[in-house]
């Protein structure tokens, strides 16, 4: 009775805010309901087994962890034989038994042979799923299995030994057979066996369902110890799908990729997703070149909508968490729900994202739901896929477990610059011979000759000689160290997992550090046989100190450093950063190219975030086939940020009025809270050949976010950066709230375990939309057909075969900001000429009639396992239409506004994903596994305001020249800018020859032209994993291909005379290869500096547009498990050590001077608009995992 009240009360509490007026209904529900009769003899399964052993004088072997937490209603007196008792006892437990000898029974777990979902690489050493998950698997399948009999034979050699499982524990019930005979035995509860063979040369075969069989020649030995390893290929995985519903992967009609937690923990990156680069088919992950806490940009199946943040939804333990992006996006002019920084403060650093709060060590498993069908139950926010993370909630094995993990990597900055070092600092072919002019950012000087001198900006006379290795000299090696201690318990009633972790990162910019402390508590508890609850709480404190300003023309260390004149000694810049007044010593006539050493000394930024997220779920099994669950989850963070990105004395800033010093200081505090409450009712039943699973649920999401910000300009007291000390103060407060209510249901019908049909339906109500447009219903259907199970006897080479098909629709309001239906007005912080001034906020015309956008996706695929699992192929084809997109549609400026949001955009993603796994070699001592994953995606803009081909909008502008456009009829993300004007022939064609003006300088096209899409078509990777006698080695090669980029780094390198292409014409000027305006061969001589400066002076970007693709040796991991060397009674139970290397080698790239991945912007509105970010790094380190 009490539990009824508890459940109902909890659910009522969750919803009463929304429905307070119906108190009478509470009363009705709270009326005592009739008590359910108590069943008798309920007790732990383990106790029941012990009772059978005692009653029937038999031995029963089992792994403890399979038995724990299972409860049965049982009395042995009701049975005549042990088989009968076990049959009854193990029903519905997911276990079955096998009579392995006289009075000896072994309990096995029911494991399904057959398929696997797309599996990440390097998984061979660990199980692809957690065993504890399997316990929850409640629809056992019929297995065919032939028990081995023990046959007594005359003694010859007696072999004994101990069999261990992959974690070093005793492994009972392993079959041991003398090859070619029927002679065999099984291991006992301690994993020990004794077997008599009559031939020294016999070979023993060790086998266990779900584990790789091993053949070992006796070779005269009397003791043979074996460690069994799970056989990935033979397992039928359980996949956590939307809402945390677990399904066997073979029943899925869509693509879902499971990621082994080892992929995240062993070869790790500070932001956990970056370690998956190149590993999951169809998932494009880019780590940005912005520092250790940088944003991880994830795009699944390409960019779908014409907005900046096509981010997947992040779900932790079934509840979404916030992944707000604080990346830098200057020039972003279209719809984007990333959080920008306020103008005027000069901040272009990347403030990170929500994923960076997660410690990889806490992740138990991760599933990536790629298509709309997979994500349909998550609704609006899942239109770009879902990353589902399950964190650890209890220990493995029995009792208390302690795990210590140490991870260390050292990050070496990589220098891809290939600059010219023949001509040094200076302009117009002249080297500096007096302190001024200050050419510090130009390398159009004289040819280096021995004995030449130059005079630097501070009057210092030094040799005129090249200064190499600027990257190595300025940056330091970064370091990341993570210490994690995990305490876990696991008992009959439940367990918990508590971890504490500290990560210390040193960025490559010498004053940039990032600290993250996390505490994660997961717990699960069964109050009784029906009532259970589980939950998790994650607290993190993150402190990002001095994230560098990147990817901008002004005030950015990388831009200044990469363009420094090639004969400027760095130590001089360091030692002479201050002038006599204590201000920045001007070393370049480009005053916005702030001396990087001055920046480091004077500029600071602190970002501190406290975050707590988690959820608690209560589950009640009403009937064996019916449960109801209620859950409440919250993500709360507060984030304090302050920075003085224009410190006092910054050369590019105007002087302050008399009595003040100049500078700008900004201080901000943000708070964010998202509350999700949901319920779920789920039923699973079987009717003959048919199985039915039906789920119904609802969710209420409410989010509140606010910001206090003050920006002050000029100060009274020098070097005191506080709001009070500021002259002009500009305060700002903003508050946004939004909510989504949802109801959803799903049903699955299976037939004979080879045909599965699945349907879902969901209704969302969005607070951001008007009442008329608020509600949207969308369905999904999918089917899976395992033809190998229906065709009787498939060919022997075909182990498993499945085809699948799915269609889904999803609606979304994600691109509708709160309050976008009404025009709001603001008042300026400071009086204008003594009076208030104000006006409409923003430049976007409100639209009260927005509807949710719709995504519809069709997917077909197949999954084949061949040659006993040594060949696997999983292929998916999809077409995704995104219609009614909320386009931040540019309108005429002459309307007074810049844009308005309308439902009109349409785009189409088409693609194919494949995963090929091969095991070319598999022998006792050596295995080689090869995995290829690849995805091709093409996204085409079908309509904007209209569907007229060529219609376009500009979504972002490069900080120098060029822009990103969406153009109807073309691939999404077109890079546009001026190109070279080509000779136009009388026959109406272009000859291809460049046209030069009378001054010898190239002329440009009449209008901007497009150079191609900045979005990659091909993303994927090859992995090779080797295991030689327990030493594992794997390496991953990944690629992104088919994308165009506009390189701002090369743009500057060309105009400043660092790029090697500018060597041409240094002596006597440049005569461009082409024609003049009259069609005659060009003979006009242009000054070399002016000739190459066209990228700036003419905004002619063609010379710096590149193929942005690459091939990289992404990861190398080498590992060994030392557990076998540990004595049995040693307190340490397991030791694993891995040596790791990340971003190891650039195999092929097309862009000059940079790694094409050193990209600074998180928004899709600026994709391909490269501007100098931090150099990429090669990290080398180790991961040590110790279990006590």
């Amino acid at each position, binding site marked *: 009775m009490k539990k009824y009240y508890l*459940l109902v009360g909890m659910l009522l509490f969750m*919803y009463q805010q929304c*429905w307070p007026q119906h108190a009478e209904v509470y009363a009705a*529900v709270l009326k005592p*309901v009739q008590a359910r009769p108590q069943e008798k003899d309920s007790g732990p399964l383990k106790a029941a087994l012990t009772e059978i052993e005692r009653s029937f004088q038999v031995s029963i072997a089992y792994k403890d962890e399979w038995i724990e937490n299972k409860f049965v209603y049982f009395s042995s007196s009701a049975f005549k034989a042990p088989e009968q008792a076990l049959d009854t006892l193990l029903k519905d437990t997911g276990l079955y038994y096998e009579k392995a000898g006289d009075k000896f029974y072994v309990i096995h777990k029911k494991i399904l042979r057959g398929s696997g979902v797309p599996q990440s690489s390097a998984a061979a050493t660990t199980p692809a799923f957690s065993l504890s998950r399997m316990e929850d698997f409640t629809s056992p399948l019929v297995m065919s299995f032939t028990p081995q009999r023990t046959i007594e034979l005359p003694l010859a050699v007696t072999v004994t030994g101990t069999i261990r499982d992959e974690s070093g524990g005793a492994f009972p019930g392993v079959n041991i057979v003398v090859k070619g005979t029927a002679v065999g035995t099984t291991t006992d509860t301690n994993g020990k066996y004794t077997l008599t063979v009559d031939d020294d040369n016999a070979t023993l075969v060790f086998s266990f369902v779900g584990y790789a069989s091993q053949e070992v020649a006796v070779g005269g030995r009397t003791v043979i110890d074996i460690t069994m390893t799970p056989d990935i290929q033979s397992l039928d995985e359980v996949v956590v799908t939307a809402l945390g519903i677990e399904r066997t992967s073979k029943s899925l009609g869509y693509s879902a990729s499971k990621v082994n937690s080892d992929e995240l923990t062993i070869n790790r990156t500070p932001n956990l997703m970056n370690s998956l680069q190149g590993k999951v088919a169809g998932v494009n992950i880019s780590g940005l070149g912005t520092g250790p806490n940088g944003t991880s940009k994830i795009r699944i199946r390409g960019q779908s909508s014409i907005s900046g943040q096509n981010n997947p939804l992040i779900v932790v333990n079934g509840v979404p968490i916030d992944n707000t992006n604080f990346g830098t996006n200057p020039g972003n002019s279209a719809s984007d729900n990333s959080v920008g920084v306020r103008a005027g403060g000069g901040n272009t650093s990347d403030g990170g994202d929500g994923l960076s709060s997660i410690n990889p060590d806490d992740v138990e498993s991760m599933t990536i739901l790629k298509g709309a069908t997979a994500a349909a139950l998550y609704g609006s926010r899942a239109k770009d896929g879902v990353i589902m993370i399950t964190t650890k909630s209890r220990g493995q094995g029995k009792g208390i477990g302690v795990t210590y993990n140490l991870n260390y990597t050292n990050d070496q900055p990589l220098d891809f610059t290939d600059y010219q070092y023949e001509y040094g600092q200076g302009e*117009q072919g002249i080297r500096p011979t007096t*302190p*001024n*002019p200050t050419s510090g950012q130009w390398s159009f000087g004289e040819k280096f000759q021995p004995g030449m001198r130059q005079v630097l*900006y501070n009057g210092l006379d030094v040799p005129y000689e090249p200064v190499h290795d600027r990257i190595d000299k300025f940056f330091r090696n970064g370091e990341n160290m993570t210490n994690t201690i995990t305490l876990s318990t696991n008992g009959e009633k439940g367990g918990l997992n508590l971890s504490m972790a500290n990560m210390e990162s040193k960025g490559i910019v010498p004053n940039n550090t990032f600290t993250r402390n996390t505490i994660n508590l997961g717990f699960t508890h069964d109050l009784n046989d029906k009532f259970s609850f589980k939950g998790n709480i994650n607290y993190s404190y993150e402190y990002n100190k001095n994230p560098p300003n990147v990817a901008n023309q002004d005030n950015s260390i990388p831009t200044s450093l990469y363009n420094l004149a090639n004969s400027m000694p760095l130590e001089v810049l360091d030692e002479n950063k201050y002038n006599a007044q204590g201000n920045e010593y*001007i070393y370049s006539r480009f005053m916005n190219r702030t001396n990087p050493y001055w920046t480091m000394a004077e500029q600071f930024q602190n970002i501190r975030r406290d975050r707590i997220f988690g959820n608690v779920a209560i589950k009640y099994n*009403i009937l064996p086939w019916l449960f*109801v669950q209620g859950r409440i989850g919250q993500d709360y963070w507060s984030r304090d940020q302050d920075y003085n990105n224009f410190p006092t004395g910054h050369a*590019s*800033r*105007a*002087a302050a009025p008399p009595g003040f010093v100049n500078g700008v200081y900004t201080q901000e505090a943000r708070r964010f809270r998202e509350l999700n409450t949901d*319920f779920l009712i789920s039923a699973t039943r079987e009717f003959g050949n048919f199985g039915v699973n039906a789920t119904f649920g*609802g969710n209420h999401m409410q989010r509140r976010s606010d910001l206090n910000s003050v920006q002050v*300009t000029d100060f009274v007291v020098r070097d005191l950066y506080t709001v009070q000390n500021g002259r002009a103060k500009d305060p700002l*407060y*903003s*508050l946004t*709230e*939004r909510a989504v*209510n949802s*109801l959803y249901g799903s049903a699955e019908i299976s037939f004979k375990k080879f045909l599965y049909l699945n349907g879902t339906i969901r209704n969302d109500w969005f*607070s*951001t939309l008007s009442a008329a447009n608020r509600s949207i219903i969308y369905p999904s259907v999918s089917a899976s057909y395992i033809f190998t199970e229906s065709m009787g006897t498939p060919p022997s080479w075909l182990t498993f075969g499945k085809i699948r098909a799915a269609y889904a629709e999803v609606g979304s309001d994600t691109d509708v900001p*709160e*309050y976008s*239906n009404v025009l*709001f*007005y603001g*008042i300026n912080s400071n009086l*204008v*000429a003594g*009076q208030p*001034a*104000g*006006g*409409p906020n923003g430049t976007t*015309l409100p639209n009260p009639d927005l509807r949710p956008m719709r995504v519809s996706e069709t997917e077909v695929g197949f999954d084949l396992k061949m040659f006993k699992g040594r060949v696997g192929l999983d292929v998916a084809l999809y077409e995704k239409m995104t219609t009614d997109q909320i386009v931040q549609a*540019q*309108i*005429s*400026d*002459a*309307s*007074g*506004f810049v844009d308005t949001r309308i439902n009109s955009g349409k785009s189409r993603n088409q693609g194919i994903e494949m995963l090929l796994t091969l095991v070319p070699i598999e022998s006792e001592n050596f295995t080689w596994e090869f995995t290829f994953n690849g995805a091709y995606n093409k996204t085409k803009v079908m309509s904007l305001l209209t569907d007229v081909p060529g219609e376009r909008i*500009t979504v972002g502008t490069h900080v120098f020249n060029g822009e990103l456009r969406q153009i109807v009829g073309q691939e999404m993300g077109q890079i546009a800018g001026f190109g070279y004007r080509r000779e136009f022939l009388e026959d109406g064609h272009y000859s291809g020859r460049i046209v030069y*003006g*009378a*001054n010898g300088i190239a002329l440009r096209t009449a209008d901007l032209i497009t150079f191609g899409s900045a979005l990659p078509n091909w993303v994927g990777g090859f992995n090779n994993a080797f295991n030689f006698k327990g030493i594992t080695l794997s390496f991953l090669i990944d690629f992104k291909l088919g994308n165009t980029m506009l390189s701002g780094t090369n743009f500057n390198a060309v105009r400043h005379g660092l790029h090697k292409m500018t060597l041409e014409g240094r002596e006597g000027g440049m005569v461009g290869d082409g024609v003049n305006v009259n069609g005659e061969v060009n003979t006009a001589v242009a000054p070399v500096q*002016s000739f190459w*400066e066209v990228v*700036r*002076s*003419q905004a002619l970007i063609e010379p710096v547009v590149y193929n942005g693709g690459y091939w990289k040796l992404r990861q190398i991991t080498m590992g060994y498990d030392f557990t076998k060397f540990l004595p049995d009674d040693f307190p340490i139970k397991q030791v694993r050590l891995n040596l790791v290397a990340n971003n190891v080698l650039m195999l092929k790239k097309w862009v000059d001077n940079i790694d094409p991945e050193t990209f600074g912007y998180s928004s899709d509105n600026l994709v391909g608009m490269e501007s100098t970010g931090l150099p990429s790094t090669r990290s080398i380190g180790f991961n040590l995992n110790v279990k006590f």
Partner: protein
Amino acid sequence: MKIMKKIFNYRFVVVLLVFSVACDNDFDELNTNKTAATAIDPAFQMNTATLNSSLQALIFEIGIVQQIISPNSGVLTGANYNQDNRATTDDNWQGYYRNVIKNTRDVMALTEELPDRANLRNMARILQAHAFMVLTDSYGDIPYSEGGLGYTEQINFPVYESQEQIYPMIIQELTEATGALDAAGKIETAEILYNGDIAKWKKFGYSLLLRAGMRLSKANQTLAASTVSAAFQGGVIVTNADNAVMKHDQNYQNPIGGTLNSTEAANFYLAAPFVNYLKSTSDPRLSAIAVRYVGAKSGPEQTIANQSYDPALQVGMPMGVDNPGAVKAAADLGLASFYDFSQADRRRLTKLSAQYFFVTAAQTNLLLAEARERGWITTGTVGQYYNAGVTAHMEQLGTVDPLAAVPAASISNYLAANPFDPAKALEQINTQYWVASFLNGPEAFANFRRSGFPALAPNPYPGREVTFISRLTYPNSEISVNTENVNAAIANMGPDKLDTKVWWDK
């Protein structure tokens, strides 16, 4: 049966949950912004419009009239190379439509039903007419009747009207609005241009009307004459105390001052034609305007210690040089570097807090001089208006910064040495208008095109795209999204090029 009972009991829970999730009664309240207003006093919007009527026109207009020029490229490309740079040509368009007309249209809509705010409404009409005049003078055909009505009338893609149609409408608007200003009505003291002073507003309105009328001196003399006459009768600004001025401060800085006092401080120089003209007449304004950092070899050497106001030392940068050209020109002239050329003094007239002059007594007096010369007004003499105009401008400089003040004796000396010559009336008047409109790029550019004075030589830059810039090109955004309407305008007016002449310039 037992099962049925259980299900029955749980039904309550399910029903409850379904209802509670589906309810969205509070969504409208949730989606109401609690921290922003849905309306503010229109006077404050009027102030925003006034504030944003100041322009930074260094890259094109002030360069086209050869007063200030930069040798450098990139964002600074424009009149220095006679090259289209659509990142800059759209500045006036965006600045006025987005920040001025958006607000004035809203003020007009909000005050339409408020009789007691009629004065504010008419002020908004006058300020808006000023913005439209600058826009059509800059680009030619523009959206006028439908311009700025995105919010109030949901016109997202306004049609363009020809300048020939627009000017009569501007004249009518100014006539009506100025005439309707009523000193007996509510005095809008919160308004920053004149603190609601109706008499001054009337002078401002009629001065704009005078300017509009004079603009048509080539294109439609009949309308020009009647407009000028009406404006003059209404009463125009003839003393500096009545100037229409945006008063800047450290928080709301002069846009030209902002540019010349930060990263571009060492990138702009006084152009040789302007310096040479002032030198040729021993104009005392040269030392008020110019500064030369004698011997500077770089921006950092442009220090107070090196500065000189001595008119004899001032050297203007020749037109048509790029960076290497400027280096060479400086060497040829015996300067230390191109940083050694004269600049508009960023510590005086182009300081951060410098006023921006929309309409001045100097300009109005000079227009009256021409009007008198043409016989469109009949009182006073040309010479009187001319002398008053020159004097007013010289006196105006000291109101910006005391260190730029021109002594009264210097003014009279100048007028004595350079007396008005009726034989060269139009040339003298409009050349003085050119000087008097220094730092008001659009007005200097418009009057130069209209009058043809001073006779500036074409920019000799070898890579120039056009010989002379006669208008600014339309924004890329218009070509992208308002294609049909802008193409209609181009078909009417001529190609969207820098050298296409606007209607009143033909």
